[in-house]
Every structure is written in structure tokens, then in C-alpha cells.
């Protein structure tokens, strides 16, 4: 049985933990709103870009001399996994779920005899994957100094990936991130970047566009941008997911701390009562003995 003083210290420590988790939860809630707004604001651009690309890509996919970014390098040997995670922990299963998915994917590819290269975005994913795939990591993008993810960040990641692709470093690139569904649900998602794939819009008949300059030039011009946009969307979704995951994790932590405080307080009171009763018995039996 722990003594009274220990219990008291314990209660105090859990109380301050609860204060911290509560504060973190509030901060995440505020950040989540901002992240969601950012994701929302980026959607019109991404949607339009996707629609136009689907249109263009559909036309040139099978054609001779289609851009390599779209058609692929014609090989399937070297895979590049872009693993986007958070820079910080304490957000529940957010980082592990991405890492887990990437790891499963990598293991499957390795088992199939492919070469796997990993580019990590965000410190946490790197830490989790380093042990198993340390020798396969080609680069790491640090976003810890970045307060608000901008298109520039996504653009630099995408250009890096494209440059590596053009240099023949890999054949297929896939990005892993968490798609934001709601505060309590974030879905780990794998999106193939290269060869680029664009979801066609839902059966909407698009007018027959005239392209200026030619279709090929536009496609060549837009493909890298479309990739940057895809990376940007992924990063934004990730940002919102991270805050959502942290918010629910901290909510749980706050509740657990509350339960713990209640339990410890009961224990503390019981011990105190026991100690008092003991003292009384000692006094009474002392008096009786006289």
C-alpha cells in the first residue's frame, strides 16, 4: 500500500498531465480548423487540375510518344515510396498507421524482387522506418520549420521526385499519407504519383477543348504541376488528419487522466481514513490499558 504522501504526489502529477493534454487538445482543435480550411481552399484548384489532366491524359495515354511521367519508364523494377508523416508525435496512431502501410507495401515489393527506395517527409515516419529500411532511404524532407504548409513545399518535393525520375532512379513512385475523413477517422492512403494517374470525372461530358499551344506541350507543361498539386493535396490532407488524430488522442488522454485522478483520490481518501481509524484505535486501546 503506497503511503499518503506518494499518493498525493501521484495525484498532483496526473492532474498536471491532464492540464497539458487538455491544452494540447484545444490547440489541436484550433489548428484542425485552420488545416481543414486550408484543405478546403485547395480543393477547387486540385479538382480543376484533375479534371483537365484526366481529359488530356485520356487522349494521349495510348498514343506514341506520350510523356514519360504519364506513360512510365516502361519498367517496373525500382519503386520509390514517398512516406509523408508528421513532425511530431502524440497524435495517436497517425504516424504508425502510415508507416505500417508503407512497410507492408515495401515488404511486398521486396518479396516480389523489386528494388525499393524510400523518401520520407516528416521526422516521425523516418524514425519508424529507419530500423527496417535504413539502407533504402534516399532522402528526407524536413518540414519541422514550416508553420503552414504552402504550395512551395509541395512543389519542391514534387520537383525532387520528378528530377529523380528523369535521372532514371526509379520507375514507379507512390505517396503514402492519411486521408482526412473526420476527426475520429483518418484513412491511410497510397496514391501513385508516377506514372501519373488521374481519376476521370464522374461521367460528366466535357466540351471538346481547343488546346493552345498543342495538346502535347500543354500536357508536358502541366504534368509536373499536376504532380505538385497531388503532393500538395496529400500534405494538406495529412495536416488536417494529424490535428484530428491528435485531438482525439488528447481527448482520450484527458478522459483517462480524469478517471485516474478519481481512482487515486478514492484510494487516497481510503488510506487517510484507515490511518485515522488506526490512530484512534491506538489512542482508545492506550486509554483502556491504563
Amino acid at each position: 500500500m503506497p503511503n499518503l504522501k506518494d499518493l498525493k504526489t501521484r495525484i498532483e502529477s496526473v492532474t498536471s498531465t491532464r492540464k497539458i493534454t487538455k491544452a494540447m487538445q484545444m490547440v489541436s482543435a484550433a489548428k484542425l480548423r485552420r488545416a481543414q480550411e486550408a484543405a478546403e481552399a485547395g480543393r477547387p484548384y486540385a479538382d480543376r487540375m484533375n479534371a483537365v489532366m484526366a481529359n488530356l491524359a485520356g487522349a494521349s495515354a495510348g498514343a506514341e510518344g506520350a510523356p514519360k511521367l504519364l506513360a512510365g519508364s516502361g519498367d517496373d523494377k525500382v519503386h520509390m515510396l514517398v512516406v509523408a508523416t508528421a513532425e511530431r508525435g502524440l497524435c495517436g496512431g497517425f504516424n504508425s498507421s502510415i508507416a505500417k502501410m508503407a512497410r507492408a507495401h515495401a515488404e511486398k515489393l521486396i518479396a516480389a524482387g523489386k528494388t525499393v527506395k524510400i523518401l520520407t517527409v516528416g521526422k516521425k515516419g523516418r524514425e519508424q522506418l529507419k530500423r527496417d529500411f535504413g539502407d533504402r532511404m534516399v532522402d528526407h524532407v524536413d518540414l519541422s520549420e514550416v508553420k503552414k504548409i504552402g504550395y512551395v513545399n509541395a512543389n519542391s518535393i514534387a520537383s525532387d521526385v520528378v528530377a529523380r525520375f528523369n535521372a532514371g532512379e526509379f520507375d514507379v513512385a507512390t505517396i503514402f499519407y492519411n486521408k482526412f475523413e473526420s476527426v475520429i477517422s483518418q484513412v491511410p492512403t497510397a496514391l501513385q504519383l508516377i506514372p501519373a494517374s488521374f481519376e476521370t470525372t464522374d461521367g460528366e461530358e466535357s466540351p471538346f477543348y481547343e488546346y493552345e499551344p498543342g495538346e502535347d506541350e500543354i500536357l508536358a507543361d502541366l504534368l509536373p504541376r499536376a504532380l505538385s498539386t497531388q503532393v500538395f493535396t496529400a500534405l494538406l490532407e495529412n495536416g488536417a488528419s494529424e490535428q484530428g488524430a491528435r485531438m482525439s488522442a488528447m481527448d482520450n488522454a484527458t478522459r483517462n487522466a480524469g478517471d485516474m485522478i478519481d481512482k487515486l483520490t478514492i484510494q487516497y481518501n481510503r488510506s487517510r481514513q484507515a490511518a485515522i481509524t488506526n490512530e484512534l484505535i491506538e489512542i482508545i486501546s492506550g486509554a483502556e490499558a491504563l
Partner: protein
Amino acid sequence: MATLQFDLVSPERKLASAEADEIQIPGSEGDFTAMADHAPVITTLRPGVLRVITGNDVTEYVVTGGFVEISGTSASVLAEQAMPKSEVSADVVNEMIAAAEAAVQGLEGAEKDMADKRLADTKALLDAI
């Protein structure tokens, strides 16, 4: 007079959305004006000034690239960077020129021509503002 729906979006946010009578667009192959019932066109942009005209109001934006999608009823400009012209100072353009100059370095052939053109367009922007 029929109007067309004008949207100006950047990757980070929607900058403008309005009904417009006509839109003057700095296309990479030359400037043109889009009005209602324009034939569907997709074209890339060069660095330049985009004018949106509604009645007597003229709103001007400086765009640095991207593309525009025009259908008979709407014009969507997807710009990588776009700012209201009033917010653009010579310093901003000079920065853009410096970036374009840096991009020219080390390129060859057709790529260099493209970068050179971009640089020239950006320099022309200095006079436009």
C-alpha cells in the same frame, strides 16, 4: 449582355469568383479576350496582367503562369501565383525577374528558349505595372 463565370484559383486558395463581361488573358501564344459563348479553349499562361471587366469595373491581376480553361459559360484561371495588381510593387517583380534569371542558367536548347521567353515576359511585366 451575357456574362461568364470567372474563377481565379491558386493551389492555396480561391482568389476570386465573379460574373464578368469579358476577361483579357495573357496566353502563352498571345493575348486574347474571352467573352460569353467563347469556344472551349485550354491554354497556358505567360507572366502578365489579367484583366477582368464587369460593366465599368476593371479588376487586374498579375499572374506568373498556370493555365486557363474557358468554356462558353465560364473561365477558370488556375494560376500558380496570382496577386491583385495593386498589391504588386516593382520589388515583387524584380524578385520574379531574379528567379527567372536564375532559372535560365544552365539550360540548353528548347528549354533555354522557354526560360528566356519567360524572363522576357517577366521583364515586360515591370512596364505594365
